[in-house]
């Protein structure tokens, strides 16, 4: 009979690393999504080109390769990253590229009449964006951002490949030490699922809160 009690702490440590990666990766992804998404709508060609290049490149290459690059290749360029830093960088940049298209699409879907009201009220471009367009567009971005955050959570498991002790990594440790496959892998299956549910629930309640009053039904 295996004594599991010693391994519970290990799995919890792994879960903490996974959560940490998800939060930090999501923060970077959100930042990149807005920078690149708004960059794609810029008046200036150079900004648009830069944003487009970023988006296409990070969507078009494998997140595994990006992670290996960040961890194994960057040191040759004199940039040494810890596994956590490399993980956050790769996850944030990769998911941020998808998010950028969400930001662009949502901003563009806000009706022309809202932009015209901004002009008629003499708001500057950035004032209108900040106070009128983005608050409305953000509501449209939220469901897809929720999807992206869950994708990011699941993608965190690849950091086990650069020896970062996340949930998946710890499950492999437990499996190696106990010889049991079913229990550790079932545990992390449920663990990821539970974390994904938390994200779904969080995004949905945020969506409900922000939508209050806008559609006239949920007052």
């Amino acid at each position: 009979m295996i004594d599991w009690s010693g391994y519970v702490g290990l799995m919890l440590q792994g879960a903490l690393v996974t959560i940490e990666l998800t939060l930090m990766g999501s923060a970077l992804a959100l930042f990149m999504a807005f920078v690149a998404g708004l960059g794609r709508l810029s008046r200036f060609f150079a900004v648009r080109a830069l944003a487009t290049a970023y988006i296409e490149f990070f969507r078009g290459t494998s997140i595994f390769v990006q992670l290996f690059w960040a961890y194994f290749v960057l040191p040759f360029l004199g940039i040494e990253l810890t596994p956590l830093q490399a993980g956050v960088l790769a996850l944030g940049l990769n998911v941020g590229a998808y998010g950028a298209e969400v930001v662009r699409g949502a901003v563009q879907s806000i009706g022309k009449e809202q932009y015209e009201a901004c002009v008629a009220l003499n708001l500057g471009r950035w004032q209108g964006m900040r106070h009128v367009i983005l608050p409305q567009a953000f509501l449209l971005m939220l469901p897809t951002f929720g999807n992206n955050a869950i994708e990011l959570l699941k993608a965190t498991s690849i950091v086990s490949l650069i020896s970062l002790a996340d949930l998946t990594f710890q499950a492999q440790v437990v499996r190696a030490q106990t010889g049991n496959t079913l229990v550790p892998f079932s545990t992390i299956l449920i663990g990821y699922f539970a974390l994904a549910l938390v994200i779904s629930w969080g995004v949905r309640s945020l969506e409900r809160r922000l939508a209050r009053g806008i559609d006239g039904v949920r007052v």
Partner: protein
Amino acid sequence: MAEPIVRIDSISKSFGAFKVLDGLSMQVMPGEKLALIGPSGSGKTTILRILMTLERIDGGHIEVEGEQLYHMERGGKLVPADERHLARMRQKIGMVFQLFNLFPHKCVLDNVTLAPMLTKGVPKAQAQKRAMELLDMVGMADKARAMPAQLSGGQKQRVAIARALALSPRIMLFDEVTSALDPELVEEVLNVMRRLADETDMTMLLVTHEMGFAHDFADRVLFFDRGRIVEEGRPEEIFRNPKQERTQSFLKKIIAAGHRV
């Protein structure tokens, strides 16, 4: 004789191959209430949109209060206006839209206070005090905390009028402001505009299909067709005794469609 507050000098505007305005000139005197009528596609709305800088002109000049709208002087020469010049000129002009264009994520009060606070740096308390006065004037003070989605079309349009007034423009543009309203809600909006006309010396340009209102409201009526002013005059002349055949047939059609004159 006072100087015109708006002087439009042979402007033209095309959308693709369609020439909406072709060498149009007109003037508006300070405090004048002007009604622009005519069939759709005749260019009347385009004129309002050009004055609000929502459309650029292809040629010609516009002066507002003696200053060029789309041009500015640089070293004795007129060059196209930059964004700063346009922003300064826009302070003179306000616009109310057919579809209200309220900000759906902001309550009525915040809709009205947003622009004064952002563009003029008015402190919040002061902006709110002024907004409540304006909302009171349009009969919407009791809905200050309501969201736009909770309002009827007529209420939304009254809020939109208050929002435009909050910036104290010298010229107000009304673009078919009752066209999207249910018939029973039209009157409440027209009443607000009547009060505005009676109580202020604001210059008002009105594009409308409400011929009865144009008749009572306007000092002068311009009948547009195909980007040109076909006929203009005092409302009683235009509506009772139009000289141009084109004006007569338009008014006949409008009356047949059930609009009262």
